[in-house]
């Protein structure tokens, strides 16, 4: 079975490479380092969120409150930093936002675990609660004078390359953070008992409980981890945009869930990998970028997103049916 899953990621990689070459031939602007680095930078926010969604999906749940969590922790952190100057360091800001996100994630975990409620309905409720609470009681104003360290961070780059037009373009510092988070998540999922537990919980919850996995600890880790990643993604997004917009990220849940499903995760739990999810995000970002480069009018973008979600679900469902035919398991 693991060979087949590796196969799925290989297919995704092949699609991505072929796609990039095709667009590169049609429009040479695609191959410019500034465009490539720009696309990598655009992968960061959805990519970090996708890792969190992946872990939740593997555990057999779903979270659609994460854009609200990200916006909430980002906005509150920026407001706090305006009050307390000593918070104005990128590491501290990331930590604070991650902490707020983690607490909000635990609220979801409490409701899902102790009240045995469906995660879709719970996170639909908490999403409305968190976004509504943020906009009604904390603020709707876009903060343009974000903490100094965030502006500095967005200017920092780790690698400088001469672009085709003769200007130097840098690889944004948020990209290594994204890679580190992806590797950490990969190691947790594949190399620890906790990771085994997450897969077991998603595959067969009752068996996981009887085998002796601590279900409540796994649930709290899963939703807490999602919250932490949402907080981090929120700060990195605000730093990229150079403003703290409480309306930001709304609606991104569709794209992110689509990317993770494209990456091979099942909404019923138990399957999926970090590499697949990251490749899924990369394909969607390249696609969105090329829709603009290929000159598709903006009204068509929603149709394209819808078709991609349907197609990616279709491919995953079809592949799974093939797999279950081969292994003789239930459909």
């Amino acid at each position, binding site marked *: 079975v693991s060979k087949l899953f590796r196969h799925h990621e290989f297919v995704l990689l092949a699609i991505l490479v072929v796609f990039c070459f095709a667009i590169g031939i049609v429009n040479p602007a695609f191959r410019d380092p500034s465009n490539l680095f720009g696309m990598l930078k655009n992968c960061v926010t959805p990519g970090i969120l996708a890792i969190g969604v992946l872990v939740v999906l593997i555990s057999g749940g779903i979270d659609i409150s994460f854009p609200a969590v990200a916006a909430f922790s980002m906005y509150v952190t920026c407001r706090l930093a305006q009050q307390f100057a000593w918070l104005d360091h990128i590491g501290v800001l990331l930590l604070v936002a991650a902490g707020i996100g983690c607490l909000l994630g635990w609220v979801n975990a409490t409701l899902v675990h102790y009240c045995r409620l469906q995660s879709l309905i719970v996170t639909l409720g908490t999403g409305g609660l968190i976004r*509504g609470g943020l906009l*009604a009681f904390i603020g709707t104003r876009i903060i343009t004078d974000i903490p100094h360290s965030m502006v500095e961070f967005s200017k920092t780059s780790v690698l400088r390359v001469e672009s085709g037009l003769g200007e130097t373009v840098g690889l944004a510092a948020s990209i290594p953070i994204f890679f580190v988070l992806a590797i950490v998540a990969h190691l947790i999922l594949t190399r620890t008992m906790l990771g085994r537990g997450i897969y077991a919980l998603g595959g067969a919850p009752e068996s996981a409980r009887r085998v002796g996995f601590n279900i409540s600890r796994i649930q709290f880790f899963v939703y807490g981890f999602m919250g932490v990643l949402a907080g981090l993604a929120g700060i990195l997004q605000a730093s990229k945009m150079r403003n703290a917009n409480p309306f930001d990220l709304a609606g991104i849940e*569709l794209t992110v869930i689509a990317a993770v499903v494209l990456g091979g995760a099942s909404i019923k739990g138990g399957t999926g990998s970090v590499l697949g999810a990251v490749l899924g995000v990369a394909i969607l970002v390249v696609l969105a970028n090329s829709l603009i480069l290929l000159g598709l009018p903006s009204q068509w973008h929603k*149709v394209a997103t819808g078709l991609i979600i349907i197609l990616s679900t*279709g491919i995953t469902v079809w592949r799974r049916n093939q797999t279950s035919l081969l292994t003789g398991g239930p459909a």
Partner: protein
Amino acid sequence: MNQSTNQTSLRPRNFISSLRSDPDFLRLNVITIVVFVVLSIVTGGRIYSVANFESMGFMLPELALFSLAMMLSMLTGGIDLSIVAIANLAGIVAALILTHLLPVDANATTTLLWIAVALIASVCTGAVCGAFNGLLIARFQFPAILATLGTMQLFTGAALVITDGKAIIGLPEMVQTFGNGNCLGIPIPFLFFSIISAAIWVLTARTPFGLRLRLTGSNPVAAAFSAMSVRSILLRTYLTSGILASATGLLIIARTNSAKADYGTSYLLQAILVSVLGGIRPSGGFGRLRGVLVAALVLQLLASGFNMLHFSNFIKEFAWGLLLILTMMVNYYASRREMK
């Protein structure tokens, strides 16, 4: 004859004992009374004005019809996130026919004819969209969330492409009367809604299809082994949900005199909230129509109350989220107490 006496003897004797046998519905009625009392105190009795009830009579049908569509898919254990998108698309199709194909100086008969054409076209749109959902879910075994998440984007996108993102305005007078007029002192949309909900009640509570719908929701494997075609039941459920959504879309364009690709997106959360509040189990199989209707009334009352108090939309979103979670928690603890 024999059958009808049997049925009456099986039914609870009166309303009170019917409440005792259905704790979900009893709780809902208590909530309704509490909401009524609190709102009347907070608004100083303004909520009871005739004008307010009349405006609720125009607003309630939209939310209630969306909730009924949501109820159908939830009864099978699925969910339909595309209902608002279908309603807007179907509304746009009707509005396009009425504004582009209908001659400006048409007499009453021609207008009526074109309205009938628009009606049929828009219901067909809803049916096609619903059938597409059903096909993905029943035939290709897509998880309902993902299928309808995708089609929601697809249908909204199609509506955006057709309209270029602009609102279509200027519908014939007759259509506006349908959306804003009264018949015997009752708002016409409310009459329209009453007829449709009666039909849905018959469908879910008095036909074999309704029973199969519930059985599919509570245990699809057992349903399949009981010689039921789960596929055809799911297909028909999402088809009906699409048609209901298109009827709602017609109601919306008639009332607002405009059709827009992204109208009323907040109805989605509210429709799920109403279904859950009304006692529909999101995992499928359980729940009754009357609960959904009372829940829709509670939500509309709250919305009207919030409007009177000049609360912002954000506070409403906050309140809906809170209400959804509280209801689910109360239902969970109540069902656990019953188990003991």
